[in-house]
């Protein structure tokens, strides 16, 4: 080994050592409770998965944080929607072939935390929707198969037409077909839609290389 090779080796070794040291007391993320079981259930036909971690801080810092909020049409709020929240993306495989992704986000509901998981295909289209945790008086209605089925087939293109602040939807958006099962559940229903839109934007930034960015409109009422 030449001196230059040794230097390269030593630099790489030290870099790996220092960079792989996890940070204590990081913000809480949103992981599947039992990934082996949950991935197989949420993605029938899959044979395995790998896990990747992202934070807005590492992926683009303050500018990305602002961009994501802009795309969402709402600012991140309170103590917990912070720049250092770790997001876990499960890459799902069938044999050696990647077939999709599973990704969850925490969202604030009326009575407690809501965990919105989306199962996406390789084009970012929702294949399955799952509330891992939902503290609500109306949890039974919102966790029903009928409610969750309404999200299947939608993508970020549809959710851009949904305003998370006012809860209004442009008529030609697929989101308009998602019906609130109970008027009393409005707050949690809107939290679910906000969580879904946030989830899709984060996936577009982290995984899909901003494929849906051309569809972005600040008001959600313009076509690309």
């Amino acid at each position, binding site marked *: 080994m030449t001196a230059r090779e040794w230097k390269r080796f030593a630099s790489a070794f030290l870099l790996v050592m220092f960079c792989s040291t*996890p940070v204590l007391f990081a913000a809480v993320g949103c992981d599947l409770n039992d990934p082996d079981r949950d991935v197989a259930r949420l993605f029938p036909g899959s044979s395995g998965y790998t896990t990747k971690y992202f934070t807005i801080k590492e992926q683009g810092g303050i500018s990305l944080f602002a961009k994501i909020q802009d795309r969402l049409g709402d600012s991140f709020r309170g103590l917990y929607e912070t720049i250092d929240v770790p997001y876990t993306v499960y890459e799902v495989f069938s044999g050696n072939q990647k077939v999709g992704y599973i990704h969850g986000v925490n969202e604030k509901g009326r009575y407690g935390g809501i965990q919105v998981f989306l199962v996406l295909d390789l084009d970012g289209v929702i294949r399955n929707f799952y509330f891992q945790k939902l503290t609500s008086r109306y949890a039974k209605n919102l966790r029903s198969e009928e409610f969750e089925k309404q999200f299947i087939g939608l993508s970020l293109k549809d959710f851009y037409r949904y305003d998370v602040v006012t809860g209004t939807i442009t008529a030609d958006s697929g989101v308009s077909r998602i019906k609130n099962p109970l008027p009393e559940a409005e707050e949690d229903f809107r939290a679910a839609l906000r969580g879904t839109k946030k989830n899709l934007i984060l996936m577009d930034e982290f995984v899909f290389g901003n494929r849906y960015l051309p569809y972005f409109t600040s008001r959600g009422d313009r076509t690309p």
Partner: protein
Amino acid sequence: MITIYQVAYKNLLRKRTRSILTVFGIALAAWVLVSLLGFNAGYELSLSRDIDSLGYQILVTAKGCPYEAATLMLKGGTGLRYMPQSIAEQIKKEPEVEDVTPMLMQAVFDPNKGESGGYSAYLGVDPATFPKMKSFLQFKQGGWFTAPDAFEAVLGYEAAELEQREVGDLLLIAEKEVEVKVVGVLKRTGTQDDGTIFLPLKTVQQIFGTDNKLTGLGIKLKKDANLAQFEEKMYQLPDVQVVSLTQVKQTIMTLVSTARVMVFSIAVIAVLISAVGVINTVLMSVMERRQEIGILKALGATAGDIFTLIWLETMLLCAAGGVVGAACAVATSTMTDVFIRRILPYSPSGGLVRINPQLVVLTVIAVIFIGLLSGAYPSWKACRLRPIEAIRSQEE
């Protein structure tokens, strides 16, 4: 003029790969040693901190159920045993007692937690005594309850983060369908309090229909009280279990020390292997340089000069290995912490591996010392070489 140190350094550079591999072996041993010594110091400190952070020295629970958390996990709220609240007044009258704080742990099954549901636990605490005993708790937002029977909650930071709650938000107690208002979010403490949802004791008793019942009683003793004698006195009480937190600490430390002895043995073996590696490397180097050493002696170098030269080479190898190993141990201490947490059945909160500068310096000195011992034989062998024989040996 070139110094003996420079000669030693240049000699090591001549066989660069071998020198680096030897340093790597020493570094590995130093890495393990520093990490283990750091764990030794960190674990005990964290365990003591965890136990001290409870705010009381003795925990009294209903007999047959000393560990609430285990019961909650296995059976939910149904498996809990209770003791009458009157016991708190009875114990408070004891002369050794400074204060007592009654507690009531309750759990509900939340079917909307995960795929098949899960339990949520609530700890009812006395607003008059609990905050006083846990005076180190600080608030990120808000404060303690406004009334002893208020339908209010104070959340540890991680519990608040999981539930995405802030002051003013509502929190639903599943199964009971009762709403409480969040009035406080605690700062992180690095202890079990981070994951706890606190409610006023009376409120928990009311919600769960467990009036005048407790699951635990924390007892803080006066400074001059005899802990052992007081424990004996508590054992006389009917139907209660006394958990001395000092005993808990000792039991855990005994269990951990067994594992620690095994791991230390491995570390000692690692150090011995690296010492043998040093002997081998330096001895090989001496054998390969017999002619050169012979020439040095023929030119006037004394046996002491040769001994010093070889010893210096050994010291450089060991110092480099010790420093690199200690640096790696410091850099990866958090990873080591995570790894140890995965393999230990119980680990306290806070840092498990504490590496301070004294520990690093001490280990590097120890590694150099062991290295110098290892280098003594090859150095002695080198200084004993006869010049003529040494020069001829290469020609043969």
